[in-house]
């Protein structure tokens, strides 16, 4: 593949090895979220990265022309994390418990060592006897030119026709 010239040599021409490494990386990511280590989670993002959750029940895909649920640039993502560390982020005080499940990890594109990665997700959030379920597909652009990998963009596309849990206060 032409696109993998940017990859470390051990991952070149070996899609299974790259996918394995990618799965390890994504498992690490969700583990950090499960444990509320959100500052460490933020450190997985490259400078200038974006984080987005598009509207439910539509195929609108540009935050400049339609209203998303979340459309963070790097600074606002950092501030989202800062906010969640405060107990005045009332919707997460006391903190909810979470479990993130991912599957169907696929590398759908590779250019200059930056991989397009998709995976299915189900995220459970429990608080005060209510379990919220979020599900859909994560779409990433992940810089694999060096390890540790760095997330350049993450978009979580909900496969829900409306936002039944009401809030999007955790990172799904």
């Amino acid at each position, binding site marked *: 593949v032409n696109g993998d010239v940017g990859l470390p040599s051990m991952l070149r021409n070996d899609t299974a090895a790259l996918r394995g490494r990618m799965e390890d990386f994504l498992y690490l990511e969700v583990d950090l979220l499960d444990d509320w280590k959100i500052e460490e989670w933020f450190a997985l993002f490259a400078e200038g990265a974006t984080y987005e*959750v598009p*509207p*439910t*029940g*539509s195929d*609108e895909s540009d*935050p*400049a*022309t*339609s*209203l*998303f*649920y*979340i*459309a963070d*640039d790097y*600074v*606002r993502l950092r*501030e*989202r994390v*800062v*906010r969640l560390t*405060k107990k*005045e*982020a*009332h*919707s997460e005080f006391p903190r909810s418990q979470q479990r993130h499940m991912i599957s169907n990890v696929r590398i759908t594109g590779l250019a200059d060592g930056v991989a397009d990665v998709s995976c299915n997700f189900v995220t459970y959030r429990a608080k*005060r006897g*209510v379990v919220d379920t979020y599900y859909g597909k994560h779409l990433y652009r992940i810089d694999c030119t060096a390890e540790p990998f760095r997330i350049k963009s993450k978009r979580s596309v909900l496969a829900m026709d*409306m*936002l*039944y*849990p*009401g*809030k*999007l*206060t955790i990172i799904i």
Partner: protein
Amino acid sequence: MDTILTTPQMVVEDRGRHLFRVARRAFTDESVLEAERRAIFDHCWLYLGHSSEIAANCDFITRAVGGRELIFNRDRAGAVHAFLNTCPHRGAMVVREKKGNALSFRCFYHGWSFNVNGRFASRFDEGNYGKEHYGGGCADLAQVPRLESYRDFWFVNFDRNAVPLADYLAGAKEYIDLVADQNEAGMEVVGSGQQYIINANWKLLAENSIDAFHGFPVHSTYFDYLKTIGSLRMESAGSEFSASGMHDLGNGHAVIEYASPWGRPVARWVPSMGEDKRPVIAALREGLVKRFGEQRGTRMSEFSRNMLIFPNLVINDIMAITVRTFMPAAPNKMTVSAWALGSRGEDHDLRKLRLFNFLEFLGPGGFATPDDQEALENCQRGYQNVREVGWNDISKGMPRQGPPMNDDEEQMRCFWRQWRDRMGAVS
């Protein structure tokens, strides 16, 4: 005979003692919700949608309003309709998509079809149906009893004898104007908006949407964010304009108006918008001043307004413009639809900025709305103690001499007095 509504009183106002109390049963009781459906949602003007959502001829959207399933559409000639989305034949919902563009509607159950003006359009073989079916209107889609609009905001009323919309809106029209006038070419809904659930009584969101008292306690993390990114601008260029306060707009509608601490894409620049946007936003502001004069132009640029139109429409012109409506699904559950309003024909970068600004505060993923939802859901859970602790206190500002402040609770009292009067009128 409705005992709920006659005894005991659920809204108690004691002006002498400066006490205003609302029974928590109003938020928890299934029979209260049923009475609200009859006394309020069957008689008040309810927001349906914005002209821009059905911009082209034959555009349609489907929407649940007032417990009904409706079709909101434009026919081939461009006339706007609202139909009850149920086949006159056997009842199936005729249109099942959320939106689209169609020359006709066809019920999938038995194939009855309709022109987009609602007329029965099927032609069955002779012997199947009499003339009445084709000419008499008994097979046409039923229109909602009343459909009227003000400045591109369309409302329905299920009471054929309701007062005209313009009369119902009363003082709220002036504040709708302050939004609709922000762009000469008009305003439009951006994208499909946000749809979500809050596990709380619908009236809690009516109160919360115009409640400035909760701003600092609930939203300190949002203000911290503004401070960090350099966007908290407390000083007001329009300090000579003393608009901060609250206005009773009649018929249960109310608005609070105040100097903005945040940036407003319409015409209030803050540093986080970037230096490149500064002249652009200054020009927008000059445009408003030119069109409306110094005072009104400054007011539109600098000041923020949270307005509730009774019973369930919120138009908040704050760090962005949100139009929000909500319907009870149960005493402890509502569905919320929220849209962003932007200028029609808006420049790409300004539109982007407007939406970015919207999301810093508003919606389920914003830095503020989720904490409002948490507050409302906490209230609802707290009402489980209703048998021991039965009353809410809405008295703030009652002894104040002079006009009410925007962080008093008079705007909520306007809502509750209207609620009381309408609920009391049911027999």
